[in-house]
């Protein structure tokens, strides 16, 4: 199942769900002041940070938490409240969020976790230790020169980024060059920290460099690093996770934009394309799941209880997704088109306009969030397919699960770089097992 980002009206009163006409100032049923809700943009398949609070029908929503220290927290939005189609083209049923399997209500009393010692910064260089290669891995005869090539057979040596694994507290990520590309242009950041109230927060950011641009590998590295740093700095300050995610994507965008100013000696003159990449991130706290993205990297929700259906949490900035969102094509037609995977949003100096999408969820049961590049979801596109390949113990063994998922992509052909982060929900307290 996938969530379409908010669509055109007929919208509902955010307070009582009574249908309202566009232009109404107050709800006819309950008198709710509708002016506090920005009119949803027409045919605009994006979620904005300042999206309306839109509780589901008949659900008793707890107060959003945690309250930000720096001001009013942004409203929480549940994608299941929005009309749309899933990736199979079937309409979603916003009236039946429970039937959709992911319930976004939580017990009124959020679970209390023991205080977690804050871990403000996770070393970005943990894992993937690089041994200075002395002998070529290809011919086992030649020495390796300063440029990373064998002086005998000329083969490029494995680079640090060809395969990376990292674990930070309860979150883990694995990135692999894949089988058909000569370098890994994906990058990721994972980390864990604590909110001001001491409850844990876990984050993962995954970026996919745009191959047609120059230095896509640098773009993805800069973006993931900047976004991860921004989240690790903002969350302990009490910034609402959704605000923090928005700001992190903006920070990532600025980091990528800055690369465009650097000259690139390796490139032919006149063929400069500003470095660019996609981004998807997830922040999990004890009760809240926030995702944010630009481009076609995705986040999936896979509950531990596999009797409940999994869900896709992001909506691609891709040509196909736009066609479907605009109602010009159905999903099958759109994805059959050769332009299907052309992305319409990215981070980079030549992006038209940065539109960070963020969304908040309140899953009603434990599970895992899979944050990945298209190198994985090309081999498990629908939420159901993803649910099938995610190991049952994903939340408890995130590193193992990320390896399994990368393996799934490599078994499928490994046509692209593949990067997977697995984030357990809810964020387990430090030292405790999975929730």
């Amino acid at each position: 199942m996938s969530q379409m980002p908010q669509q055109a009206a007929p919208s509902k009163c955010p307070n009582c769900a009574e249908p309202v006409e566009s232009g109404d100032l107050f709800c006819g049923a309950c008198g709710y002041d509708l002016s506090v809700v920005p009119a949803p943009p027409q045919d605009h398949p994006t979620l904005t940070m300042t999206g309306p609070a839109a509780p589901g029908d008949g659900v008793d929503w707890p107060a959003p938490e945690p309250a930000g220290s720096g001001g009013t927290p942004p409203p929480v939005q549940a994608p299941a409240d929005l009309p749309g189609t899933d990736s199979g083209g079937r309409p979603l049923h916003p009236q039946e969020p429970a039937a959709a399997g992911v319930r976004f209500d939580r017990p009124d009393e959020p679970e209390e976790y023991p205080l977690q010692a804050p871990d403000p910064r996770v070393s970005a260089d943990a894992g993937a230790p690089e041994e200075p290669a002395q002998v070529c891995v290809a011919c086992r005869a030649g020495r390796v020169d300063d440029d990373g090539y064998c002086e005998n057979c000329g083969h490029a040596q494995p680079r640090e980024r060809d395969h990376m694994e990292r674990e930070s507290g309860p979150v883990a990520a694995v990135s692999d060059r894949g089988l058909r590309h000569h370098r890994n242009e994906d990058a990721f950041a994972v980390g864990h920290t604590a909110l001001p109230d001491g409850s844990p927060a876990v984050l993962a950011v995954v970026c996919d460099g745009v191959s047609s641009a120059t230095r896509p590998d640098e773009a993805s590295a800069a973006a993931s690093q900047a976004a991860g740093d921004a989240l690790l700095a903002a969350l302990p300050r009490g910034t609402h996770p959704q605000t923090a995610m928005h700001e992190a994507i903006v920070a990532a965008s600025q980091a990528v934009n800055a690369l465009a100013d650097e000259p690139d000696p390796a490139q032919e003159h006149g063929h400069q394309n500003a470095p660019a990449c996609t981004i998807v991130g997830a922040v999990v706290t004890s009760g809240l799941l926030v995702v944010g993205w630009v481009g076609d990297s995705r986040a999936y929700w896979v509950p531990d209880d596999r009797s409940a259906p999994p869900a896709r949490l992001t909506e691609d900035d891709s040509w196909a997704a736009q066609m479907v969102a605009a109602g010009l094509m159905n999903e099958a037609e759109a994805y059959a088109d050769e332009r299907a995977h052309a992305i319409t949003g990215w981070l980079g100096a030549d992006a038209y306009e940065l539109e960070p999408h963020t969304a908040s969820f309140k899953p009603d049961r434990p599970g895992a969030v899979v944050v990945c590049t298209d190198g994985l979801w090309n081999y498990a596109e629908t939420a159901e397919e993803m649910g099938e390949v995610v190991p049952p113990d994903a939340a408890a063994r995130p590193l193992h699960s990320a390896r399994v998922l990368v393996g799934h992509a490599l078994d499928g052909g490994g046509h692209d770089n593949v990067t997977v982060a697995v984030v357990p929900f809810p964020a387990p307290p430090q030292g405790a097992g999975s929730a």
Partner: protein
Amino acid sequence: MANFAKSTVPQFSVDVYQNEHLPEGGREVNAIVTVTATGGGTLGSAAGAPGHAPGRGPSAAVAIMVDCSGSMDYPPTKMRGARDATAAAVDALRDGTHFAVVGGTHVAKEVYPGGGRLAVADATTREQAKQALRRLSAGGGTAIGTWLRLADRLLSSADVAIRHGILLTDGRNEHEAPEELRAALDACAGRFTCDARGVGTDWEVKEVTGIASALLGTADIVADPAGLAADFTRMMETAMGKEVADVALRVWTPVGASIRFVKQVAPAVEDLTGRRTEAGPRAGDYPTGSWGDESRDYHLCVEVPAAGLGQEMLAARVSLVVPQPGGTARASEAERGGGSVHNLGAQGLVRAVWTDDMAASTAISPQVAHYTGQAELAQVIQKGLDLRKAGDFDGATAKLGRAVQLANASGNADTAKLLAKVVDVVDAAAGTVRLKTKVAEADEMTLETRSTKTVRVKK
């Protein structure tokens, strides 16, 4: 040999232009390597440096070889033109440059200073040289090999950084066997560089271009003897601008790879493939002669063993060295097992990356495409003129039509102009031409001599 340790050797830079993407199973890697030398010895900066004349650029020795065969008197303007041109060249000599003038017939004679020595240029020696030139007279045959051997003996008598010759002939090398000229060229190759000029229209284009090619100089036609003085002055100024001699393009290739060709493609086409000298494991040196502030392009074609999709390989590493056989231990890091070299620092990497992205692997680097066209242009002109001489007018029309098409497409305006004197162009884009019924011999020889001149890629 010259000592470069403290000299004002220009800074070399290497830029590689290529499409590194190969399809699955692809083996041929093409790259254009642009070598640029800048910021060499400027006036004054070389003061006191070993091997340098005090106060001015690198030390140099120049030998001017003037054809004094009997035909130079028919018409007498040729001999007069040659004398004036040589005098102009002597005037263009930098103070302190070693020089000699050789008069060439079926034997080589020292015209100035004589005694198997070189003169050192100053006001006095220039005047003496010009006096000696007045005594030059025409008479005898033509044996260019002997001129070159004498020039080599004279040039090697001085310990200088740059050795250069200027050779003028007006006729065929009739008084020695072609093998003797070949042997003389082989003996002189790498010892000095030489520009060659043909005056009038009675000389053999392939002989003159062959001399320039073997000795890494330029070849041209001076159909009108009146134009000689300006041309000699230009040549001498270029020679005086050279700052480092005996530069070699060192190409490393991985095991299992073979070099299909190494060609200089700008400013003129010059195939260097056969001139490789081994320089350690998997590396070879290709001579490029001497360099001033200038830029040249090389087309490198390497065949590598195919690797799997997603693999990346270094197909070639290109660097610039001054090989110094018998030199002292100044071996650089790039040199592994070869003779002592002075590495000029710059290097370029030619890569191969196998991909299943058809758009990437089928793209042709614009530089490679351009110079492939320029090399073909030179070739079809040569073939077209050969066929025309052999009486195969259909074949000549086809080749020269293709040449017009290539010159037109690549913007090689100079060659296009020369072609237009040999053929009537009906449709340049389509390459439709008619052979002119009457072609001036000078025009045909000019086209043949200059057929290898290329233009660079439009930026």
